[in-house]
């Protein structure tokens, strides 16, 4: 019943301290940080790493790309840890553990990927991996405004024979509105084998409800406060699951079991359940 994919690999959890190889600015708040790490470069789309900023914090981050020993994560500065990480310079040391967690399935043919804001990161990695596999892909991305739509030029190149639907809340690019409206619009016309989703939890909850309505299997990448990353501390518990160990990718069947919490509540640092 519990995914074998999330098996614990001891060597993956040993922290490796390595210099930052490259930093790319994506927009005012978001940067992509690249480093060399053999273990993380074997990561599959959907997996995450624990990244240590020495004497500051250690945070979970989705993997954005991995190839030839190089690994990239994309970080939006939202708090003290991410601000501090985004102010680091090339050559400075970071620590990494991982990759951890399960990953998106890649069996289905007609796929819909839907990502909100920085939630696009693991979906972009997935897109890169599956786009050459003779699949029919619809990529829906959304953000508040145009410059928050990440990786747009690469996505356009990758999806040149596929469909891209972009949505911005202020209408500065693509459709004006919220991302789930684009989803409903397309599902009224087309059927898909699977939906992959990542983004703010309220958005993903809406995606889940819509996917249930249209009876399309969903795989959603959940986010929770994390400490250990290996299923011990309980910080990321949702229902009977630990996001770090049983997730971070959850399918429709699992999401139904955590319906009461998914999109509504989470644990804070004290282990107290608080509304999302």
């Amino acid at each position, binding site marked *: 019943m*519990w995914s074998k994919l999330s098996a614990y690999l001891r060597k993956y959890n040993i922290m490796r301290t390595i210099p930052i190889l490259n930093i790319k600015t994506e927009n005012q708040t978001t940067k992509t940080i690249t480093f060399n790490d053999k273990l993380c470069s074997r990561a599959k789309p959907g997996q995450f790493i624990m990244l240590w900023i020495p004497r500051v914090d250690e945070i979970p981050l989705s993997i954005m790309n991995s190839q030839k020993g190089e690994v990239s994560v994309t970080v939006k500065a939202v708090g003290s840890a991410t601000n501090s990480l985004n102010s680091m310079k090339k050559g400075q040391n970071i620590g990494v553990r991982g990759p951890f967690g399960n990953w998106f399935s890649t069996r289905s043919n007609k796929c819909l990927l839907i990502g909100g804001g920085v939630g696009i990161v693991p979906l972009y990695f997935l897109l890169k991996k599956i786009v050459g596999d003779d699949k029919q892909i619809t990529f829906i991305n959304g953000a508040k405004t145009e410059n928050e739509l990440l990786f747009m030029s690469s996505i356009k190149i990758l999806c040149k024979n596929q469909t891209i639907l972009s949505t911005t809340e202020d209408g500065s690019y693509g459709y004006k509105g919220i991302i789930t409206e684009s989803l409903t619009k397309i599902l009224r016309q087309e059927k898909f084998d699977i939906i992959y989703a990542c983004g703010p939890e309220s958005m993903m909850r809406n995606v889940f409800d819509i996917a249930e309505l249209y009876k399309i299997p969903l795989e959603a990448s959940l986010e929770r406060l994390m400490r250990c990353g290996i299923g011990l501390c309980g910080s990321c518990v949702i229902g009977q699951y630990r996001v770090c160990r049983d997730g971070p990718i959850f399918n429709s069947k699992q999401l139904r079991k955590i319906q009461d919490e998914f999109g509504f509540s989470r644990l804070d640092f*004290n282990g107290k359940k608080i509304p999302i």
Partner: protein
Amino acid sequence: MKSNSLETHIAGLHLNSPTMLASGIMSYSVDFFQRIAKEGVGGIVTKSIGLESRKGFENPTIVQINNGFINAMGLPNPGIASYANEIKKAKNVLNIPLIVSVYGFSIEEYETVAKKAINYGADAVELNVSCPHVKDTGLEIGQNPEKLFRAIKKVKNNVKKPVIVKLSPNVTNITEFATIAVEAGADALTATNTIHAMAIDIESTKPILSNIFGGFSGPPIKPIILRCVYELFKTVTVPIIGSGGITNWRDAIEFMLAGASAIQIGTAIALQNTKVFNDINKGIKSYLKKKRFKNVEQIVGLSQKI
């Protein structure tokens, strides 16, 4: 009806299996308790709960060293008042003993939290007088004979349910502290908490844990804690719960032969996931059968006969 050879008893608590969940691990959520109950866990010890809620330390709160972990979570917990609902809910849905781990920043706090936990429905309390990484609690009680005696006595005088004391291995002679705990009224002892430790990253030249120091757990500490249990069995008459690096059924048997009436699993959940409880129970069962023991209680302390 075929009798359950894994059945064991700790200070009046009836356990369907000797394999318990150790404190500090995964213990916020009743849904998760139910999940491991299905795996055959014999009893559950919650995360340590205090009077007020606590955020715990910044990350890194855990670092792996070979097959072991040093952790300094910093006792994050929602506080006893908020945890009341979880205790009540757990008692409704679980049919195994629920033991609430209790810490305090004063002897009075230990007493207040323990009393509340029992009132909310806990079957017993385990006093955390051995957390090695938070100032003014845990180890600072457990390493001080006089404070240790007073804390246990105070709780004992005010709760009607079993009081288990989780000892620290970070003392010169653990049997002295065990004797004090039993004199103060401890109904059972958990041996032991983690070993005070640290790790330094040589590239950045910095300590890894945000708290610098933490507690070492997992397979590397097993021989040390096994020795503690062996010594304690010679010294005290109350039941001992072994806890320290137990990862498989062989480790569990070893601890019971040394004198543990039950064992606690923590770190092994990371190494083996939740199936570890079922795996260990199955292993113990076949060992008992192979060696022709009727039940698990027959092997407790057997290695003392030499």
